[in-house]
């Protein structure tokens, strides 16, 4: 019988099925971070339950760790240091692998897990972090869980789960110039809503997805949680195997038939299917307080929930381009990989952020991204243009009591959430691609990157 990729991975991991019909699904990898992982580690220790296989559990400091140069355990978040020191102590006690604050491999969970080959095609990976779905870009079944579930996975090696439904989202055709994977994700959310994928594993496919490089696929899968999907997945191909070859925790070879069979069978049926014309997607931007409030950058603000208009300070019928901004942020598990920084740097070269911008910030997704970017001189390009260049971490993707701005400040951000108060009380966040963030920082107002002059190579 024809099966979807998600079904194949699920079936291969069912250790047993309970009398109530739940599957006990083997979990190959658990990843923790200091914000929600410390709680899981503390609970498992308090219950005197050992971690079944500590070699397959990893932890990193990413959420509230300071990103200013010369950082240590001190963090701007009030009481934040305890999350770092307690996670460190608990990780050492549990015998799991920890990428600590000063580790050269430290970075955002979903950036370093693929970088180190911790996530692999066909594996199951969970983390108490909603953006774990990012890692489905490598052909893994990877999803976000709560702290209790993380404790369960560490103590038992499995999770108790009903089989999820499946959805196929095909992006067909070629993306236009200046249009990226981020715009694909926002276009999907704009058309089908923040609850559109509820309870499904979403497989992204189609010619536009096949054409994406691995890092862009991660950006697309990253926002599946904003679509209420359980997980996102993309069938691994030659690009995936080439990306993983030689990485620290990856196997020596991807030549065996096993790896080639990790794809949905011809004729496999999904519970739902959506087809999107990739060529019709424009650079996107959010106008409101949900990622589903996404519109093409040259569009007018539509009528949405009044509360969203009141919070964001934009009335229906306003042209979104030209809206003045105060803060520009390039970073996060959505858009802080080397390819993101390269594209942003290419656009910013020869320009400077507008004098009205109060802060412009680039935060690389990992130590490895930072070093590679510096080797290419990207840090100097950003600094010359007026951006700050930081250590890796989640940073301004959200507000943990650290850096923020006066209520009412308007931020353009390469992140994934524009919720009320996401970047601080009263902060108005617009999410978009790094290209749109750069164009807007230069203009001092929301701007279309397709209209920006790009410096010709000498």
């Amino acid at each position: 019988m024809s099966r979807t990729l998600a079904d194949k991975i699920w079936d291969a991991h069912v250790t047993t099925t309970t009398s109530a019909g739940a599957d006990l699904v083997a979990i190959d990898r658990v990843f923790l971070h200091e914000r929600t992982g410390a709680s899981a580690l503390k609970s498992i220790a308090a219950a005197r339950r050992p971690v079944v296989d500590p070699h397959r559990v990893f932890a990193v400091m990413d959420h509230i760790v300071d990103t200013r140069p010369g950082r240590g355990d001190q963090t701007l978040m009030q009481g934040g240091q305890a999350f770092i020191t307690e996670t460190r102590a608990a990780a050492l006690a549990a015998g799991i692998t920890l990428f600590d604050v000063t580790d050269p491999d430290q970075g955002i969970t979903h950036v370093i897990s693929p970088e180190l080959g911790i996530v692999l095609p066909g594996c199951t990976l969970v983390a108490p972090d909603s953006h774990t779905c990012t890692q489905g870009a490598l052909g893994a079944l990877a999803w976000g869980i709560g702290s209790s579930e993380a404790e369960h996975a560490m103590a038992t090696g499995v999770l108790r789960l009903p089989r999820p439904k499946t959805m196929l989202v095909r992006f067909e055709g070629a993306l236009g110039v200046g249009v990226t994977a981020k715009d694909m994700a926002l276009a999907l959310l704009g058309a089908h809503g923040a609850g559109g994928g509820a309870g499904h594993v979403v497989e992204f496919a189609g010619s536009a997805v096949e054409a994406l490089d691995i890092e862009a696929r991660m950006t697309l899968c990253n926002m599946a949680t904003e679509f209420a999907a359980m997980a996102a997945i993309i069938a691994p191909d030659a690009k995936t195997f080439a990306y993983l070859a030689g990485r620290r925790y990856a196997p020596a070879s991807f030549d065996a038939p096993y790896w080639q069979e990790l794809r949905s069978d011809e004729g496999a049926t999904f519970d739902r299917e959506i087809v999107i014309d990739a060529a019709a997607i424009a650079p996107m931007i959010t106008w409101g307080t949900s990622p589903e409030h996404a519109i093409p950058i040259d569009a007018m603000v539509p009528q949405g929930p009044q509360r969203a208009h009141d919070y964001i300070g934009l009335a229906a019928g306003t042209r979104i381009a030209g809206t003045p901004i105060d803060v520009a942020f390039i970073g996060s598990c959505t858009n802080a990989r080397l390819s993101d920084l390269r594209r942003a740097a290419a656009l910013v070269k020869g320009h400077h952020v507008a004098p009205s911008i109060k802060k412009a910030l680039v935060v690389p997704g990992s130590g490895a991204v930072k070093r590679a970017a510096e080797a290419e001189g990207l840090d100097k390009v950003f600094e010359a243009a007026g951006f700050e260049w930081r250590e890796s971490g989640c940073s301004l993707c959200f507000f943990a009591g650290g850096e923020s701005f006066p209520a009412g400040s308007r931020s353009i951000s390469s992140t994934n959430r524009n919720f009320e108060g996401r970047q601080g009380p009263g902060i108005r966040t617009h999410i978009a691609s790094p290209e749109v963030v750069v164009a807007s920082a230069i203009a001092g107002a929301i701007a279309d990157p397709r209209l920006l002059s790009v410096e010709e190579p000498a």
Partner: protein
Amino acid sequence: MTPFIKLTAVAAPLLADNIDTDAIIPSREMKSTGRTGLADGLFAPWRYVEGRVPNPEFVLNQPEYAGAQVIAGGANFGCGSSREHAVWALAEYGVRCVIAPGFAPIFAANCIRNGLLPVVLPREAVESIAGREVHIDLAAQTLTCSDDTYAFPIEAEAKVMLLEGLDAIDLTLKSRPAIAAWTDADRAARPWIYL
């Protein structure tokens, strides 16, 4: 875990769609690595005005809904972060059940693990019961409000866990032999997984 069997309470209306975890418990309200001390931060952005003064317009600050055990919410309730603190905060405040047209999957799973019942009903039903007294019977999978009775779905396993207040880890550890047998076979088939 406290079992959930039956409950009669007024459903506090909080009907906006996409109520996210940043609204339920903002990151800055998660002040320790523990699972307690969170109720004060529940819905902080809406519950308080400047200086942490209760906002009289917020539903839980109105006398008829203070200490609500049931919340009637909008679609995609609990979207956003995986933070279980959102459910811990609700539970510590005293909420035992959230009724909504739909839930974010991680939030719904977190509810089950903490003895909090997520009830999915059509939007019209949620709107009609909001602000009224409801009687919930988990074994029967029914919610009654005045003369109307609604059936709600729940996964069989989740239902058992809630009704019996089971510790999922203890329950799973009973299947240890089956898990070990699977792992032994898998170790041979996929050696690269076992680091």
